[in-house]
């Protein structure tokens, strides 16, 4: 045996990921050593500093990568090229904004997370923990670990690192989903569904990785791509392995037929977590998908085209149609995110260089609107009677009917939410329009004009339910102005909902309580202002990227070359 020679490691390009993961480890130590009273401030400062540091590190690496085309660290485990930097910057920025939403104590000094996630809901212990003002400050290290995994996920061309990054980003999200302060049964249920399905799909993906390794004898994307060029009689392994690997990635982006978890988890998870995972997971998973489709499997384009096309069309159609009939804001945004996964997929399928730029830009635009929209959802609360018989702010008002008349009572929040909805719908002068235009034109350029056509039709249909919310907020009487009215005559939307609500008679008691809550009037709180700041930044991004997208598009296009 020859002696062990230590590998050369270029530490510089690893800094963005390292900063985040190190800060996460320090955050765990903070939990152990810093007194309870000061933990929240310390954790928050640490998290924000780490994410800002990651952004700065990406900026510092930018000019070097733009000149040289990128660096390959540790034999492909980490590839720092243009798309990597763009994706890492997007994820760090969106995570930074999500952190502000995480930290905001919206209602009565209480944040969105259970005082003690281990307490049984409704128990004396939980009530005691609430009165003592306990906080689960572990959410910040969990958020950092997830962010670190997400920043690694699209930056690797090695199946081993891909699998580890997938788990590093998933495991904290499973836990965060189950830590909601209110509606804890729903939150725990979301967590369990997400976990069981996520573990199942990551096992499928791992088996796919095993088969690809068996085919090529290597875990590197470039070696597998080279092996596909010369037939060796094991193509069965290759095709099945590639399909299983793609299934894992489709699950993470929420593409049909792997989207079933999306509405349940998005609805049940605490809203700040929903915003974070809806935006950042999608960015990370599409980055990884780009690398797999462009870097590993271009030789398989003939075999995989059918699959990708079917998935893209189904995703757009199912997401749009299902969103049309939703009555819960978070569920509606979940199905809309499924539809958006389909739109991004058209850009991925294009297999053009312009497709990479388009996908990266779309992800930034979609992420900004998503974090902002869920930030506003976390501010729209039910109003009730508090302990001292004064008005108190309760849980989130997620029933669509509760949003009626919000445009009159809280115009600023309603206008901002409208802006995000218009961006989702792809109306000109918003970032969403530029993103959609870019992915569809890349698809046409790549010869997939049929996909672009389906995409445009689906966007038109999707605009209907976005506009429905806008009409509801601005042109419908709020329920409390017509309180004595019977359920049939409140609003046109409420009567449109009636067929949905009718079969609810057989549902268990907790659902019925949830339905009874719907009459409570909604109000918008400012919280401590952190969420407001995050929403304002997202709104600014949406407008600026919509009005003057060319500097950002040019900057992305100038570095949008994937290293093998």
């Amino acid at each position, binding site marked *: 045996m020859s002696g062990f020679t230590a590998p050369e490691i270029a530490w510089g390009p690893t800094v963005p990921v390292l900063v985040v993961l190190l800060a996460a480890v320090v955050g765990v130590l903070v939990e152990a050593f810093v007194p309870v009273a000061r933990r929240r401030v310390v954790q928050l400062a640490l998290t924000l500093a780490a994410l800002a540091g990651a952004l700065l590190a990406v900026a510092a690496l930018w000019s070097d990568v733009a000149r040289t085309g990128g660096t390959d660290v540790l034999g492909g485990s980490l590839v720092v090229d243009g798309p990597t930097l763009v994706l890492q910057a997007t994820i760090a920025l969106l995570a930074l904004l999500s952190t502000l939403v995480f930290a905001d104590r919206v209602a009565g000094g209480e944040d969105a997370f259970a005082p003690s*996630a*281990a307490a*049984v*809901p409704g128990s004396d212990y939980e009530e005691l923990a609430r009165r003592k003002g306990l906080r689960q400050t572990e959410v910040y290290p969990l958020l950092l670990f997830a962010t670190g995994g997400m920043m690694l996920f699209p930056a690797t061309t090695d*199946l*081993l690192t891909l*699998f*580890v990054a997938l*788990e590093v980003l998933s*495991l904290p999200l*499973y*836990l965060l989903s*189950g830590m909601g302060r209110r509606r*804890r*049964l*729903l939150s*725990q*249920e*979301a*967590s*369990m*569904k997400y*976990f*069981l399905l996520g*573990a*199942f799909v990551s*096992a*499928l993906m*791992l*088996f796919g*990785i*095993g*088969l690809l*390794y*068996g085919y090529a*004898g*290597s*875990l590197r994307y470039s070696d597998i791509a080279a092996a596909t060029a010369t037939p060796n009689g094991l193509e069965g392994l290759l095709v099945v392995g590639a399909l299983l690997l793609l299934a894992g990635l489709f699950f993470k982006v929420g593409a049909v037929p792997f989207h079933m978890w999306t*509405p*349940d988890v998005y*609805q*049940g998870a605490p809203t700040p977590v929903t915003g974070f995972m809806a935006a950042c997971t999608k960015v990370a998973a599409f980055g990884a998908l780009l690398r797999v489709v462009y870097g590993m499997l271009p030789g398989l384009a003939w075999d995989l085209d059918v699959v990708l096309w079917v998935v893209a069309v189904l995703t757009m159609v199912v997401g749009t149609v*299902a969103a049309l*009939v*939703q009555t*819960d804001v978070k*569920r509606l945004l979940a199905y809309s995110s499924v539809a958006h996964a389909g739109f991004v997929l058209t850009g991925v399928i294009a297999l053009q260089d312009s497709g990479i730029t388009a996908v990266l830009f779309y992800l930034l635009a979609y992420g900004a609107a998503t974090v902002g929209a869920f930030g506003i959802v976390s501010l729209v609360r039910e109003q009730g009677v508090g302990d001292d018989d004064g008005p108190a702010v309760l849980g989130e008002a997620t029933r669509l009917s509760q949003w009626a008349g919000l445009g009159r009572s809280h115009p600023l929040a309603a206008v901002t939410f409208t802006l995000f909805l218009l961006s989702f719908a792809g109306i000109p002068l918003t970032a969403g329009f530029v993103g959609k235009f870019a992915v569809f034109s890349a698809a046409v350029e790549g010869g997939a004009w049929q996909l672009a056509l389906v995409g445009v039709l689906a966007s038109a249909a999707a605009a209907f339910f976005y506009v429905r919310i806008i009409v509801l907020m601005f042109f419908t009487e709020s329920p409390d102005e017509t309180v004595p009215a019977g359920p049939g005559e409140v609003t046109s939307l409420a009567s449109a909902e009636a067929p949905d609500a009718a079969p609810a008679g057989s*549902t*268990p008691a*907790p*659902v019925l309580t949830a339905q009874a809550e719907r009459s409570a009037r909604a109000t918008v709180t400012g919280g401590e202002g952190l969420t407001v700041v995050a929403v304002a930044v997202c709104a600014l991004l949406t407008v600026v990227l919509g009005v003057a997208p060319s500097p950002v598009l040019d900057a992305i296009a100038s570095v949008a070359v994937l290293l093998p």
Partner: protein
Amino acid sequence: MSLTHYLVLAAILFAIGATTVLLRRNAIIVFMGVELMLNSTNLLLVTFSRIHGNLSGQVLAFFVMVVAAAEVVVGLAIIVTIFRTRRSASVDDVNLLKS
């Protein structure tokens, strides 16, 4: 015995694990199915590693073991929390979230 036999065994174990996940109703058993899938993949990786004569597959198998352990920690925590709340670990009882 040919190395192909190990691959067939891995595929059979994987199929049993996947069937368990899809058919059984107890969350703990479902989770055991997932673990069986991961371990069958380990067998697959180690066999391919032997066939190709390089160590990448064995190294990945080590990482899979570590990841599986981490997944057990998180998964059992979630399942136990659900059980303490509902006195049931059946995946059929977890059905409040519906459209």
